């Protein structure tokens, strides 16, 4: 039983160890790190919940190749992102720019936090005005 569990756990890890590109794209570790950072910022257009770094579809492989080629050609990060945005729009970026159209997207977490905080403060404030004792259970809360 225990051996079986270990085998199952190992199999689960195998999924995580699965690599898209087997060899590193660049010999220089700094360039490789930059490459990894860029491809994690670009969305795969065929499987929208994955970055092109994680996706196995061929379009993602083509886009990774384009990123490598542009890096080898000495393009800056901004030029590479712009190349993708020109073709696929802001949606290709996992961090879209803050413009009028994406205001709700960027503002939603703050709005939700403020709204939730306001509701919580309101409920706590109201409850704290209630007597400590419960008329139905006079023993409760009495010290």
């Amino acid at each position, binding site marked *: 039983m225990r051996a079986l569990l270990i085998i199952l756990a190992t199999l689960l890890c195998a999924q995580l160890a699965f690599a898209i590109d087997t060899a590193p794209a660049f010999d220089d570790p700094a360039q490789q790190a930059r490459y990894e950072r860029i491809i994690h910022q670009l969305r795969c257009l065929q499987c929208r919940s994955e970055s092109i770094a994680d996706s196995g579809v061929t379009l993602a492989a*083509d886009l990774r190749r384009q990123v490598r080629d542009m890096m080898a050609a000495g393009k800056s990060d901004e030029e590479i992102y712009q190349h993708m945005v020109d073709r696929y729009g802001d949606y290709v970026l996992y961090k879209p720019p803050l413009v009028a159209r994406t205001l709700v997207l960027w503002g939603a977490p703050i709005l939700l936090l403020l709204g939730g905080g306001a509701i919580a403060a309101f409920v706590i404030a109201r409850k704290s005005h209630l007597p400590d004792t419960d008329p139905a259970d006079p023993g409760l809360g009495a010290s």
Partner: protein
Amino acid sequence: MLRFIIPIGLFVTLVVFLAIGLRRDKETLPSPLIGKPAPQFELPRVEDPSQKISSREFAGRPYVVNIWGSWCFACRDEHPVLMELARRAEVPLVGLNWKDELPAAQQWLKQYGNPYVATAFDPQGDVGIDWGAYGAPETYLVDARGIIVFKYVSPVTIDVWEREFLPRIRQAGVKGE
């Protein structure tokens, strides 16, 4: 009274957002290339790879670019529609064979018929990416000025053609003259 306002308010907000989410088409990405000049390309022809096909050949009048591949199941469904559109000859259909292999692409055109005035061979997929393609089939309408005026993702049907493409083709032709 107050105790109901918060949960009902939250519920209504949730319903509104879910309703918006359900009605939106999340499959079709808006293309940033609509209203922009169509990307130029020069590629080998599928029919005869020793010859080149250039986007310049189609300049000056409206044309349609259809992105397809022999690996694409939906393209198989679309193909009879393209054959019918080729028969109607309202606008030239230019094929862009995307991320495919030459023998498979040639076999496809031989077996199912060739609706295209010419088909460009793009095995690396870079030209398709220039056009903002993220799947196949995708169909683009370019007007006489060389501007992409419309893009349709997924198989074109006769209904879609008559509703979405034809009115724009009439407009696209007039604008350029």
